[in-house]
């Protein structure tokens, strides 16, 4: 198992080292009258969108594991939810920072209170609150935070379709299916790299929760003796 994990780490390092070269060599997106400066800013897309995808996956993992903890009282599921919840916040932070860096060049502003941006921010804050409740909520905080995670997961489909329902400044969900063949390769390579990274981080973080449970068990044993 450890060998498989190390293999995954090595693969992720190689993929993230190769990705920037492939991205820089990819053809520019087809935007009429775009200056070279604006076209260069589109390179952020290759990391921004996969980060958002992984954030959604992480929210689903956290929500489903939390539901299992709530309804089936599985401690293992709660530990997985805690790990995934933290990763929603990490990848959400990446999305919320790289997006405005791209927007400054593509839209001319850092931030717009449009449906996609606002709903993503709200979702990120729900999972931030999830972590805070877990950390400072006291007895019963695991079940309270699990309920929050289920609501956070329910938010994901709304965030995804928000760009199609409320047409504002953010591009629709049709951007990825309509990518040119030259852009598809590096884009899906980056998605794969981010999914691999997410899996490795989730395993690492879940191990921390498992060891913490072991520590609690050892403290109980020490008190009994």
């Amino acid at each position, binding site marked *: 198992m450890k060998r498989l994990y190390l293999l995954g780490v090595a693969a992720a390092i190689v993929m993230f080292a190769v990705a*920037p070269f492939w991205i820089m060599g990819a053809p520019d997106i087809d935007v009429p009258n775009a200056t070279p*400066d*604006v*076209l*260069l*800013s589109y*390179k*952020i897309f290759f*990391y*921004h969108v996969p*980060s958002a995808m992984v954030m959604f996956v992480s929210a689903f993992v956290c929500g489903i594991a939390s539901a299992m903890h709530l309804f089936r009282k599985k401690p293992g599921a709660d530990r997985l939810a805690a790990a995934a919840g933290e990763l929603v916040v*990490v990848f959400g*932070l*990446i999305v919320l*920072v*790289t997006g405005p*860096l*791209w927007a*400054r*060049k593509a839209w001319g502003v850092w931030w717009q209170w449009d449906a996609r941006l606002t709903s993503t921010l709200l979702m990120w804050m729900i999972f931030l609150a999830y972590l805070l409740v877990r950390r400072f909520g006291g007895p019963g905080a695991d079940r309270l935070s699990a309920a929050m995670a289920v609501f956070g997961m329910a938010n994901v489909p709304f965030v995804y379709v928000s760009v199609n329902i409320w047409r504002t400044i953010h591009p629709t969900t049709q951007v990825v299916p309509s990518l040119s063949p030259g852009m598809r390769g590096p884009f899906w390579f980056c998605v794969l790299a981010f999914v691999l*990274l997410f899996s490795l*981080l989730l395993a*690492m*973080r879940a*191990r*921390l929760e498992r*060891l*913490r449970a*072991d*520590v609690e068990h*050892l*403290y109980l*044993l*020490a008190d009994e*003796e």
Partner: protein
Amino acid sequence: MKRASRVAVMSVVVAAWVVCAGAAGRAAQAPSTPGAAAPAGQAAQGASDQFVPVKALPAQPEEWPASRLVLGAYGFIWAVLIVYVWSVWRRLGKVEEEIRTLSARLAEKAPRA
């Protein structure tokens, strides 16, 4: 690996990244310096309190070149991931140490019982 060594390794990685990102940022900025922004005094003189059509406005030099934004985005992602991995690694180290201490304490008590 001991925790101090881990911290030292991570510090070196973060420091190397900061140096590389800084150098790359300066390199990316260099071509844009001849057309730098006008001094504040000139900008104040040029200010108008009347309506000016957009087409009549003087061209503004771009204060945020794309290269700086792209480097910033990629650098930020790397920084966040490095700090996060380091944070989980540190927490793992602490918990493993706690487990060792508790196990030793329990093993000491066991023969007496």
